[in-house]
């Protein structure tokens, strides 16, 4: 999977591609209105960088969002877009996708937009496996409304609406997506552009709903929420890159690994002489149970934060089944004729007398 160099120069040219796009082709003429330093800028940049790698003309890309800082996303893309209402992006996007399955439909949403007011639409989109690429900008805060806690805020967090600390346990978005029947569930970070690009590319190419939890820094209301995972010095020891077919190792010198004892995961040292790389669990992204297990690591003391594609399953998408069913019925019954339909049912003729 060839990425771009950020200016789109080393684009892997795909033969079917109608035009050789660069990242800049996907930037709209609107001024970007996020706070300087906001993590949203990076996500925008990575999306714009990977789009030239898809075999999809610009006019077939559509970005749909709810309300929130992150939901301003569509305005900044030179593509089609709808800046919807709070929480409803997956519903609007489902309408677009099932009306025209030919479009590549992206959903840009925040942790509040997706998991608070929009929770129902998210879980139902995942259940249906409808072809939406859901990018959840997870800054663990409500940015646009200036700093209330969100459903991913840590228990006890003090915010504008919780001056004495929250009493709400947060969701683990990956677990929720897995529990909803998601067929592509991943996580990445604003401050790891290369990883984010890889995950976005895979999400874009997934057939069905692709859900990506993106750690994003809100430097105004929740600055540094993820610095442990995103900053150079702390990242290696605190982040586990999960990759299909690869052993689960991490650490500054790849010196730590995850071992499974029965059902219980253990962090092992690969340097203590007691363990070797062959003890380390090799990741299998087709295993639902493994995905659920590894996704718990973020909540387990002493474990690294898992990042990557947790789960990928291949199941016919909603829009495919919808199209197929229409085709099958039409084949069986013949293409509908309006006059026949109007004149069907219990009819009789009255003649002049």
């Amino acid at each position, binding site marked *: 999977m060839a990425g771009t160099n950020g200016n789109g120069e080393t684009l892997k040219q795909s033969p079917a591609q109608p035009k050789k796009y660069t990242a800049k082709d996907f930037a709209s003429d*609107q001024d970007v209105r996020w706070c300087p330093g906001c993590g949203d800028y990076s996500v925008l940049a990575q999306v714009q960088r990977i789009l030239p790698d898809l075999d999809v003309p610009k006019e077939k890309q559509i970005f749909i969002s709810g309300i929130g800082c992150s939901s301003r996303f569509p305005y900044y893309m030179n593509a089609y*877009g*709808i800046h*919807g209402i709070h929480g409803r992006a997956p519903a609007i996007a489902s*309408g677009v996708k099932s009306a025209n399955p030919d479009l590549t439909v992206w959903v840009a949403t925040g942790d509040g937009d997706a998991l608070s007011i929009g929770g129902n*639409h998210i879980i*139902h989109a995942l259940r249906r496996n409808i072809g939406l690429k859901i990018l959840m900008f997870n800054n663990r805060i409500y940015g646009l409304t200036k700093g209330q806690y969100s459903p991913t805020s840590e228990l006890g967090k003090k915010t504008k609406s919780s001056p004495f600390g929250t009493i709400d346990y947060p969701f683990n978005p990956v677990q929720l997506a897995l529990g909803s029947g998601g067929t592509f569930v991943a996580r990445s970070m604003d401050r790891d552009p290369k990883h984010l690009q890889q995950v976005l590319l895979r999400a874009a190419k997934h057939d069905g709903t692709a859900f990506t939890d993106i750690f994003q820094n809100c430097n105004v209301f929740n600055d540094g929420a993820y610095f442990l995972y995103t900053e150079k010095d702390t990242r290696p020891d605190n982040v586990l890159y999960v990759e299909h077919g690869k052993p689960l190792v991490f650490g500054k010198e790849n010196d730590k690994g995850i071992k499974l004892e029965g059902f219980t995961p253990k962090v092992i040292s690969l340097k203590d002489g007691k363990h070797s790389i062959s003890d380390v669990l090799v990741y299998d992204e087709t295993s639902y149970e493994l995905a659920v297990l590894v996704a718990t690591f973020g909540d387990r003391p002493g474990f690294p934060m898992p990042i990557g594609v947790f789960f990928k399953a291949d199941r016919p998408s909603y829009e495919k089944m919808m199209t197929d069913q229409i085709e099958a019925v039409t084949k069986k019954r013949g293409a509908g004729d309006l006059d026949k339909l109007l004149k069907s049912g219990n009819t009789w003729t009255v003649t002049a007398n």
Partner: protein
Amino acid sequence: MSKTIETVDDVVIRFAGDSGDGMQLTGTQFTNTTALVGNDLSTLPDYPAEIRAPAGTLFGVSSFQLRFSSWDILTPGDQPDVLVAMNPAALKVHLKDLKKSGLIVANTDSFDDKNLALAGFAGNPLADDTLVDYQVIEVPITKLTLNALQGMGLTQKESVRCKNFFALGLMYWMYSRPMEPTEGWIKQKFGNEPKIAEANDKAMKAGYYYGESTEVFASRFEVKPAQLKPGLYRNITGNEATALGVVAAAKKAGIPLFYASYPITPASDILHNLSSYKNYGVKTFQAEDEIAAAGVAVGAAYAGNLAVTGTSGPGAALKSETISLGVMLELPIVIVDVQRGGPSTGLPTKTEQSDLLFVMYGRHGEAPAPIVAAATPADCFHMAYEAARIAVKYMTPVYLLTDGYLGNGSEPWLVPDSKELPTIPVTFRTDPENFHPYARNENNVRPWALPGTPGLEHRIGGLEKANITGNVSYDPDNHDFMVHLRAEKVAGIAKDIPLQEVYGEQSGDLLVMSWGGTYGAVRSTVDRLRKKGYKLSHAHLRYLNPFPRNLGEVLGNFGTIFVPEINLGQLARLLRSEYLIDVVQFNKVRGLPLRSTELEQAIVKTLEAIPANGKRS
């Protein structure tokens, strides 16, 4: 033994029994056969909010009323001539509606102590003098059905279930209807269960021959075909008609139909119907809730489909925020509200007209949307078509109001030829030259530009936008301009809808002004009064926002305006604020169609109160 056949003009018959007794099916069969015989007809199904309440209870009674006639009729009738009562509870619930000296056909087998007690009868009404004012015909329907089916190898339960076909056969005999249509239907319906098919068929015939061969019935009747306009007719419910209306509109517009909905009584049948039209390219999407359904419709509209979302009051409330978005985006969406009894869950299986002010004003901000309303079951076709036409022509959400009575009720419909239907021109923008998503045509309408079109990439959204470019704008004067523009766009539709017609004299002392599903009751009452020599006219509104452009003039031509509604006076409020005229209100919020008799009395009273100079003080 053959009986004399009396010819009558107009009959109202009500089948009533337990929810499990198959009364809806019986009524529907009688309706279909009656349609084929050529009578004009109108139906009123009525069933409880419970699926199948315990047998014999009052709240478990289900009924189906049918009126048929040799002339044009407009309502299913106030008072039945005949009540078929399958059990005491059915008798108890419906007796008060029966015409004095009307006919009761009672299934005596069900009048046992347990059922009498469940129905709250102290004694047996068949035995005491409860029914002295009526003609009672006692028929042991259950027993006769069992007898007829003996030896077929059915269980007792299976046999008993056929008793509604016995009743149906009996009524067929009584009103001289042919059994063939139902015979055919039985064969088709129970194709996989030949024994059940045979049993139902036998039961029906047993009923028919029971009428013919016994002395219980003094006479039988005949209702001659009505003098309907020639053509192909179809008996149709309002919900079927709504479904066909939007399919027809989509076909004529040359775009696919997309119906997004969440089931809710009494609107679900629209979804059921449309989901079976897959080979017409119809997409149906059963969403997780009404908000999602509205959102899906917004998306489908943006992608270029004819987007329709149907529901009833509680669901319409939930869609409100999303429709406000639709107003801001200026996308065509048809929202069907099959009104039912409210507030809250209210009376979910009953009819009402209480969402008019809600669809008019029930969105935050200044969010105008056109409203049309169907007058009769078949009119749902035409108004659904109109709603779609207005939506795509003016790029706006449009509300179509029908109601539980229209949705479930049926009438014969002179099926139009698709060629006769008005054209619905749709042009998607394709030219990138000078393209602006919020540029406007002479009607203030913006272009419909679909994702997938090269060169038209653009973004729309719920924030206020600059006119023409569609870019987000916080400019105060632009907002003021846009708020006015959106209002004017909708108001401007007035020039594109028919003038308000008046039935009767075009000016005078009294105009009865109605809208929606009360059409039949009001028109027939006005007619009756006119025949009795009263002077009054009738205007029925099908366009509620904007109003027809001559409406002020029409109202000005009458001294008194009488407005009957199944709500507390919602149209009355709109007329008052729009035209500053006082109106006489008639409001009965009983979950049922207006009763002609009450309505007649109220109109007469109003007429009598009009002083000689024709103006009320």
